[in-house]
């Protein structure tokens, strides 16, 4: 099997982004990227981090939430890619290469946003490796995400070379899968091990991050897959069509449902607890915020209800809408998770008599916008030059009915 697939010509169907549409979108995304980065850099070089609305009382704001969103979406995409590449769910082959590519560029975008948030980004490059503070989860975050990035790149180069099932490709795939688990699990522990921040303190936070990460990864995958084909299913390979009307929407629905379950149990625990640093976050911050409630209801509950219907969940327009809603809903989740852990003032007495308030500044929004637009730019370049729709010939040429057999 391994050698038989190696060297076979990869197959792609019509990619809408390789034509004028791709160039048009690329120009728009590049303009947004340049403007947002330019504005952000101008603010950072002239006024520094005073242009952020964070403070010593609430040090982590939207740029951290953006990084968290991107890092976990990347991990989610990596985990989805492992379905065919590690666990043998062959019906997912049509999205595997796009998944790996998206995981790579989304992580790059997240890392760059984080870099602009730090006080001394270039110092980080030598200070972390040379000081080997193995007690710090943030040290391991650097190690694991660097490995994750490396394995994603390696895996992508294998797929780009048409090596789908060679021994090395399998081994790199497994290494990448483990790298993703370690990176995102450790990222969860950066928050989950902070017993002095009870809203975050949770030994099972890695599971919550895996689950929500895969959900946001799935939302990105669905959206970008349709975008690549100009939102027209008939341009897609039958195997991809079968996936998008079979296993994938079912998995997407289950993931949104699981995410809602996680949020519900966290909310119930928080509301039940007498601990003000948990309880007040839910009552006076999260559920008191119309935006949080809207994100929860429109960004997760509504998509879940819609995706429960077998006829609706297989429709392209519904899937794209759900992907966009979940995309935004989970971004809000990340934001409220990061900020929620800090809104109860910590040891400040009456200097801070109420919950801390935080609204991102224009510079912080610029960094978020830069992350998103960079993602789009890299993605569009990838679609243009890297044939992200590749899949093994057996899958590409198999009858659609055959590939539909079995579900994830």
């Amino acid at each position, binding site marked *: 099997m391994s050698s038989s697939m190696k060297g076979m010509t990869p197959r792609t169907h019509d990619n809408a982004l390789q034509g004028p549409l791709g160039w048009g979108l690329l120009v728009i995304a590049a303009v947004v990227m340049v403007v947002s980065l330019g504005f952000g850099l101008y603010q950072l070089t002239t006024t520094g981090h005073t242009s952020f609305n964070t403070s010593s009382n609430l040090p982590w704001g939207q740029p951290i939430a953006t990084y968290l969103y991107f890092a976990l979406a990347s991990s989610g995409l990596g985990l989805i890619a492992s379905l065919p590449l590690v666990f043998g769910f062959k019906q997912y082959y049509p999205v595997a290469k796009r998944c790996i590519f998206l995981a790579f560029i989304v992580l790059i975008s997240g890392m760059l946003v984080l870099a602009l948030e730090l006080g001394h980004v270039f110092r980080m490059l030598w*200070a972390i490796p040379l000081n080997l503070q193995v007690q710090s989860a943030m040290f391991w975050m650097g190690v694991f995400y660097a490995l994750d990035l490396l394995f994603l790149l390696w895996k992508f180069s294998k797929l780009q070379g048409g090596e789908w099932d060679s021994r090395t490709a399998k081994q790199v795939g497994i290494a990448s899968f483990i790298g993703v688990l370690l990176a995102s699990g450790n990222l969860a522990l950066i928050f989950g091990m902070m017993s002095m921040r009870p809203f975050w303190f949770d030994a099972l936070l890695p599971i919550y991050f895996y689950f929500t990460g895969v959900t946001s990864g799935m939302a990105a995958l669905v959206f970008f897959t349709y975008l690549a084909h100009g939102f027209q299913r008939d341009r897609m390979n039958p195997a991809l069509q079968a996936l998008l009307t079979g296993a994938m929407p079912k998995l997407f629905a289950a993931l949104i449902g699981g995410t809602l379950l996680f949020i519900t149990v966290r909310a119930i625990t928080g509301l039940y607890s007498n601990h003000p640093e948990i309880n007040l976050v839910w009552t006076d911050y999260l559920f008191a915020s119309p935006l949080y409630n809207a994100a929860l209801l429109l960004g997760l509950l509504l998509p879940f209800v819609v995706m429960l219907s077998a006829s609706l969940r297989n429709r392209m327009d519904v899937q794209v809408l759900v992907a966009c809603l979940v995309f935004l809903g989970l971004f809000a989740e990340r934001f409220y998770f990061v900020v929620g852990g800090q809104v109860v003032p910590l040891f400040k007495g009456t200097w801070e008599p109420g919950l801390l308030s935080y609204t991102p500044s224009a510079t912080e929004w610029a960094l978020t916008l830069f992350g998103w637009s960079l993602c789009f730019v890299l993605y569009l370049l990838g679609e243009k030059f890297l044939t992200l729709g590749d899949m093994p010939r057996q899958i590409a040429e198999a009858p659609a009915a055959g590939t539909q057999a079995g579900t994830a």
Partner: protein
Amino acid sequence: MAKWGMVIDLDKCTGCQACTTACSMENNTLPGESWQDVLFYNAGEYPSAQMKWLPRPCMQCENPSCVHVCPTRATYKDPDAGGIVFVDWNKCIGCKYCMIACPYGVRFYSDEKPLIEPDIRDAYPGENGQLWSPPYQNPEEDWRRGIGIQPKGVVSKCTFCYHKVKHAPEGIADLDEDNPEVKEYVPACVRTCAPKARYFGDLDNPESQVNRLIGDKHGVRLKDHTGNKPQVYYLGAGAGVPAFTPADRENDA
């Protein structure tokens, strides 16, 4: 080597905040960057309402969570400097994880919006890498220990006035401002305390006054459940922190 510790007697403390002012002048901190602060708390309600207060320096914890989380070892506990927790401004990358991990909220990232206008950093723009450069400065700058005026993009904190304490004679049990021989080595907040509510000495020396006070007057450490084991002890009634209640909900409590 000594293990420097502080004892604060809340039955004597008047909440005058002279310690906060002295610290700010000694260490050239910005408004709001209160390495030493006095926290005020309202607890209970009429007819048993209380107003409590407690001075809050860095606790220089024996088991400091800020040190564990720092990815570059910029934050470190120096056993050769009396167990004081320092920030090496040459290594700090400004990730602010230590500020998240400190249960006592004693760390500051001064590259933030000014607490009051006009911004004093604009009045005295930074020179030689400093965030701001006022005309009077502590001459004993030591960026490796976070002493002096910090550069941009790093975290700052109380150093127990190590630039003074380090000159203390070897083996001394207490640094008492009433002792003319050592008064110059006493941390600014201790030296300025008018009601003499603060004591500073060697927690490893059985003869020290700080040890006697902790033993005889039931010294407690704040938020001891965190396991951080502060080297700052409190005496007297009021050595506890009420649970957080938003000001507009105090009557619901």
